[in-house]
């Protein structure tokens, strides 16, 4: 059984730690960021205040989520000075480093959907409802148009990403039901459904990082033995065309490669 598992060869060859180094680094990043946010409310050490929508670090560094800010701007409201500075910093950062680095290195829901993906693989759940990966861009467009029409920051009414992150810091309430729904949806309804097909936050960051210079590359492409593990492990496998299509535009940065 374990011999058939994705990446088994890599584990044998490189050892568990080296084979999982990107996964480990991503988890350290995700949990570390969450930990910094939690340090204030739990231990009274205020390194960073706020949540992923807007945060203020050490009373010095503002960071604004550009997607939330854009929805707010479309309702006809501009952020104040700190909000705008934070917006600029976040925009430049993700333009350079690749938008979906947010998804894989920051977003707390990634751990939920990765868990669902992992369990789906372990349980051997086959078959997945088909939905175009473009759906998320349509939802993105809908939330932007909808914000302008309703005057409400629309996606924030139900956004599981901010609900989970805000909930962990400010009190979860019933937000766990939404997170559980995302988990179960990914597990039983659609493989990689949330992040890969529906979430407009990821769609926004994907567009933002479209021309980022940071890409996953395959410098030793000639040594590829077509094991297809990269294809299997990647939550967005459409961006990998084995042996031929690395470094294509649309390969959104450093994804879920284990």
């Amino acid at each position: 059984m374990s011999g058939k598992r994705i990446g088994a060869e890599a584990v044998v060859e490189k050892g568990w730690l080296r084979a999982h180094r990107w996964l480990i680094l991503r988890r350290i990043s995700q949990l570390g960021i969450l930990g910094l946010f939690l340090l204030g409310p739990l231990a009274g050490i205020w390194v960073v205040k706020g949540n992923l929508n807007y945060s203020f670090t050490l009373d010095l560094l503002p960071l604004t989520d550009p997607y939330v800010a854009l929805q707010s701007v479309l309702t006809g409201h501009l952020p104040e000075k700190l909000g705008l500075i934070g917006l600029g910093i976040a925009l430049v950062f993700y333009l350079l480093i690749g938008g979906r680095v947010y998804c894989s290195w920051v977003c707390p829901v990634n751990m939920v959907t990765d868990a669902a993906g992992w369990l789906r693989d372990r349980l051997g759940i086959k078959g997945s409802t088909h939905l175009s990966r473009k759906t998320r861009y349509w939802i993105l467009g809908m939330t932007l148009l909808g914000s302008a029409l309703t005057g409400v920051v629309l996606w924030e009414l139900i956004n599981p990403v901010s609900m989970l992150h805000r909930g962990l810091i400010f009190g979860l309430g019933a937000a766990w039901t939404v997170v559980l729904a995302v988990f179960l949806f990914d597990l039983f309804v659609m493989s990689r459904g949330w992040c890969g097909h529906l979430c407009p936050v990821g769609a926004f960051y994907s567009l933002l990082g479209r021309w980022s210079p940071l890409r996953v590359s395959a410098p030793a492409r000639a040594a590829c033995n077509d094991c297809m593990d990269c294809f299997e492990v990647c939550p967005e496998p459409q961006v990998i065309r084995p042996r031929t299509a690395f470094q294509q535009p649309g390969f959104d940065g450093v994804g879920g490669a284990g």
Partner: protein
Amino acid sequence: MARRQFIFDSAKMACGVGMLGLGLGLYAKQSKALPALALRPPGALPENDFLGACIRCGLCVRDCPYNTLELAKPETPVATGTPYFTARNIPCEMCEDIPCIKACPTGALDHSLTDINQSKMGVAVLIDHETCLNFLGLRCDVCYRVCPVIDKAITLELVPNPRTGRHAMFLPTVHSADCTGCGKCEKSCVLDEAAIRVLPPKLAKGELGKHYRLGWEEQKKAGHSLIDESKMLDLPDRLPEGASLPGHYDPASGQTAPLRGMPGSEAGVMPSLPPGLGDKP
């Protein structure tokens, strides 16, 4: 055929996502109906604008020194992630430097508000005259005493107590022009359920028709009466037989009916015996 398929695929997306959008839009509409007892922080824009300007970061919550504010959870009937407070739990302490507004990275809390006494989080309303202890004739006065804008936002208005006929009632009276809606009165009301509550101004306030003019105000503005008072007729008042209006001047008899319990009303005699123990004067 490819074009046909493209159109159908697009229609599928537009309609599917459109349905989701419709649901979200209607939910957004609902979320604008802020519950009456949920108050926004000082300087908050009107609810319609607030839900567009607020980015749900919680910085105001963090910088409130009294833990007054909280962020709405998904099950709260307030738009998820937005800050609010419940006066009966923790009211606004009206910090002079208004740290919540300073912390706000957007215009959701109006940064031009620098005097907390000018804030309008709501308007206190003495909503239940049946249970308010002062209305029952006691001297509770707690809402009046705790008011940060005492003697302006809440005053005690003296009126005779018609039940005893020998006491005054000190009725807490809110003046909306000075009330900030901080909620300290509601918090400190001694009843099991507060008789005074802070409500959104829209719920709390009546509104005169635009054409209304208050004669006494106009008189003050003009420096004299707007009409020729010498030509004014004061007709005798018709009252039901046996009825009297204490303190009322009746031009027919040239008499003022006695009014007990009010300072300055010398007409009438104070009863020498408590009511019920002898002849009522």
